[in-house]
């Protein structure tokens, strides 16, 4: 067992996976703490589900090690790893009743009958599926099926739960309900949970920490707010947040000893921005600001940076309205109150705090 990681639940060490010539995972490291809720987030094909399958033992790794609860399980069978898994398609055994589905794994493990009954009873109480126990999966709705699938994981009584996009097959309303339920379950059981999704709302709401993945590499592993507020690169910045962050191309300059960002005729004072390392003047950079951080009207004038802009397009979204203006000749979207939404053609004052913005190198896309 690796040293100094006694409070770790799952350790992924230098794991790589190749399918032929395709590198799906590239010596990936991940250290999940006991009781932590980790979300693997990324676009399709980023390797997040593959990583989860490797942790579960459903895929053999090409290199590296996997530790679960201090045990090297790299070559163990899935059933011996102390994990339970919930799948996107529910994967309930169609010819078995709900009860049969819940007890299948326990029967395989040759647990005594009364122990099986006890665990099935407890899981069905927690998930409120007791009235469904005698039914076949075909007679259940999507939400009920996923509850049963979660129940099947619950009865295994293990330390680590793996979720592979468990809510993606459900409609929006059910998805919200079950999301809350999964969060409640985590608070109640305090198990380690690793959860794969491409839905950033799920990631933000559920996770203790989010691992944003792309191309088989974890781009950033941090608390949801840190990922939102200080994305390490342009990919993470663009992937998190909806509507997406505005990116404005320009250059870093200096004016009176203070760093500034120049884009077209706009000049943004960056003295409130905390650089990772102060870049030299003249560096090509991308200035990122989230639509919800752009203010209008009097609030805009009070911001450290403000400018006049005209509204081009307006997209009402119910809770608020997305207005498209421009800054330095480039598109800039902003969220406005639906009640006081501007109309196309309006001249308005916009403003934001450069301290809350993100600046990336135009070449490497890394945060400056």
């Amino acid at each position, binding site marked *: 067992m690796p040293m100094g990681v006694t409070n770790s639940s799952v350790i992924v060490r230098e794991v790589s996976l190749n399918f032929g010539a395709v590198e799906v995972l590239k010596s990936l490291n991940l250290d999940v703490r006991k009781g932590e809720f980790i979300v693997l987030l990324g676009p399709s094909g980023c390797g997040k589900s593959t990583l989860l399958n490797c942790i579960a033992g459903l895929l053999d790794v090409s290199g590296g090690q996997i530790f679960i609860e201090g045990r090297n399980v790299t070559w163990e069978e*899935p059933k011996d790893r102390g994990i339970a898994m919930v*799948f996107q398609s529910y994967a309930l055994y169609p010819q078995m009743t709900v009860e049969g589905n819940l007890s299948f794994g326990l029967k395989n493990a040759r647990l005594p009958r009364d122990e099986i009954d006890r665990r099935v009873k407890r899981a069905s109480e927690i998930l409120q599926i007791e009235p469904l126990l005698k039914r076949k999966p075909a007679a259940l709705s999507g939400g009920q099926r996923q509850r049963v699938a979660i129940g099947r994981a619950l009865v295994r009584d293990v330390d680590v739960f793996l979720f592979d996009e468990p809510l993606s097959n459900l409609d929006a309303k059910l998805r919200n309900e079950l999301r809350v339920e999964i969060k409640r379950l985590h608070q109640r059981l305090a198990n380690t949970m690793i959860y794969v999704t491409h839905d950033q709302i799920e990631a933000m709401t559920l996770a203790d920490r989010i691992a944003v993945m792309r191309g088989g590499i974890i781009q950033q592993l941090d608390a949801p707010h840190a990922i939102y507020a200080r994305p390490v690169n342009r990919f993470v910045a663009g992937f998190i947040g909806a509507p997406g962050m505005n990116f404005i191309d320009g250059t870093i300059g200096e004016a009176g000893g203070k760093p500034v960002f120049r884009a077209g005729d706009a000049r943004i004072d960056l003295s409130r921005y905390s650089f990772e390392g102060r870049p030299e003047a003249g560096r090509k950079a991308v200035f990122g600001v989230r639509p919800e951080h752009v203010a209008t009207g009097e609030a805009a004038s009070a911001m450290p940076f403000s400018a006049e802009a005209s509204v081009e397009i307006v997209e009402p979204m119910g809770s608020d309205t997305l207005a498209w203006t421009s800054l330095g000749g480039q598109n800039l979207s902003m969220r406005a109150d639906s009640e006081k939404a501007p109309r196309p053609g309006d001249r308005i004052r916009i403003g934001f705090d450069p301290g809350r913005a993100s600046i990336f190198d135009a070449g490497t896309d890394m945060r400056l």
Partner: protein
Amino acid sequence: MSVAAMAVEPAGPKPGKLTAGRIGIYAFLVVSALFFLLPLAVMILTSMKPMDEIHNGNIFALPQHPTFDYWVKAWSSACTGRDCYGLSPGFFNSVKITVLAVPASIALAMINGYALCFWRYRGSEFLFTVLVFGAFVPYQVLVYPIIYALSRVGLFGTLPGIVIVHTIFGMPILTLIFRNFFASLPVELFKAARVDGAGFWGIFVRIMLPMSLPITVVAVILQVTGIWNDFLFGLVFAGHDNLPMTVQLNNIVRTSTGTVEYSTNMAATILTGLVPLVVYFVSGKWFVRGIAAGAVKG
């Protein structure tokens, strides 16, 4: 005004139309059905006519003195070469061969398809390709090598021998059918069962087998009709005591003692074809699926 009043506002169910095209299609179908039923009708009619009626009458004419004597004769006393026991020994031989070879080939192909679909290993894709390629190898090429191999192990001309031959030759297409069926199931089902601690046989017996009933029905139909209708393998591999019904039929038809007894031949032919016919009538749409599955090679 008058135009507007005459136009019918479209509402409710769309009225059905019997167009000229429809009538044409139905007419064509009826004619086709009659055309294909005609030989069967002639066979049944002829099988019930005494010889003089056949010689003197029209083949479409109804029998003047209908009799089932020829059916009885075809079944129990027609001569196949020197033996005169009718078709019945052949029928029971065919039943034995089919009853043994159908489950054997299907069980093997099922396990094959399951393993090739879910338990991929190095070279499993290659093996599958080779197996499917086997479906295209002409049988004739393999007859002599198999005769040689079977006689070396003492199984040539025996019931186990012919069963083994049918099992081997059923393997490519059946494995393909089962593998494709298993590939259509969600792979997450297999993964969930593995996490639940089921092994190779556990997943096969407890999860996959109960789900494969529809495709098994298809495979059974495909194999029953295929093996029942087989002539070549039965003739070559079954041996004198196990000759299937098709071979016996051939012998009856070819054994001539003076005049050709058409009535007996017709009755014997219908009797031989009865099993696939019954399978067809009982299983209807499954039969068509079986044929279609057999037709989709590769």
